[in-house]
């Protein structure tokens, strides 16, 4: 029998530690990838994962049974990443996109491929504000639906549609500028 995330969270809130372990197994890599996409360094993303689960433990009794665990945990993650991101941006001046200090990959070819891709991705998304970037990542990379995003951000699905529309418009405009630069 497979328990749903929500059932596991209720069990954990009632004191079943093993239920928490299962939630951790289900979400640790996913949350790390989300954090890694939003934050600059690997260690900051790792800290974010730890903070998210810490907050899950500390807020377990505040979890409302029936509420989507995915929405809840990503809401927590978004807050943690926002907090860590603020500190990180203050500490790191990221002028050079060739800085590879945050990319800890063993295989050289993979390493190079990742740097190139990361640069292209960063270049493409650089016109976005941190919150816009986060929303886009949750939508396009995590594949979360507008209803879930509305839950996470505390707005309506309609508002999410409008925000996504504007973000993509912004990207299209930014891309056009980059394309024009490339042609010169």
């Amino acid at each position, binding site marked *: 029998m497979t328990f749903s995330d929500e059932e596991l969270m209720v069990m954990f809130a009632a004191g079943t530690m093993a239920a928490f372990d299962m939630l951790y197994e289900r979400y640790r890599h996913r949350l790390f990838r989300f954090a890694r996409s939003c934050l600059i360094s690997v260690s900051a993303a790792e800290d974010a994962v730890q903070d998210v689960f810490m907050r899950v433990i500390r807020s377990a009794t505040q979890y409302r049974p029936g509420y989507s665990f995915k929405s809840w945990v990503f809401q927590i993650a978004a807050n943690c990443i926002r907090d860590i991101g603020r500190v990180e941006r203050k500490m790191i001046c990221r002028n050079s996109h060739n800085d590879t200090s945050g990319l800890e990959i063993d295989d050289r070819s993979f390493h190079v491929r990742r740097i190139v891709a990361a640069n292209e991705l960063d270049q493409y998304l650089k016109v976005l504000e941190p919150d816009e970037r986060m929303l886009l990542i949750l939508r396009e990379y995590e594949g979360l639906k507008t209803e879930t995003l509305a839950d996470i951000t505390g707005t309506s699905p309609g508002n999410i549609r409008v925000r*996504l529309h504007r973000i993509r418009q912004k990207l*299209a405009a930014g891309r056009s500028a980059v394309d024009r630069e490339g042609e010169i």
Partner: protein
Amino acid sequence: MNTTSKTCLLLEDYLDGQLSKPDKDSFTAHLAECDACREQVRVSEKVRELFNQHPQTGLSDDADLRVRMALRREQYGKEPAKDVMNLEETAAWLGVTPGALAERLDEIPAFEIGGRIRFSRKRLEKWIEMKDGDILLQLQQSHLRKDNNLLQFPGGKHGKQQSGNSGAV
């Protein structure tokens, strides 16, 4: 650029592949006419493509272990320590991994009851005072070792057996 129509509102569902066949056909026809929606789809596809080209690794083993340790301390740390603890509880209390603790069992005061290893908190406290924390420090430093067999959470994929035992305290 066209003005937003009701069909434009189907964009997100279209991107999710959630539209019914008639709605999808209708939206596909709309795309041919609507510059704004076409641009939205193009950007969405570009972003997804870039994310896919950007190989993301999961949480590394070392980071995973550090997080698990911190969470374990958070979970167990809040409860007042018991006078008699099992391996998991003792490891959490000492801030080390069960694996590291198990490796040094010959140096740490433990006793056996009913075939199970147990630790007396009072004896551990005396032992720590006596050792001046040196061994404890070594234990804590060794927690980054990748002895995953002993370092899973009780409910983890390798730790279910342990969970049954620890639940019987």
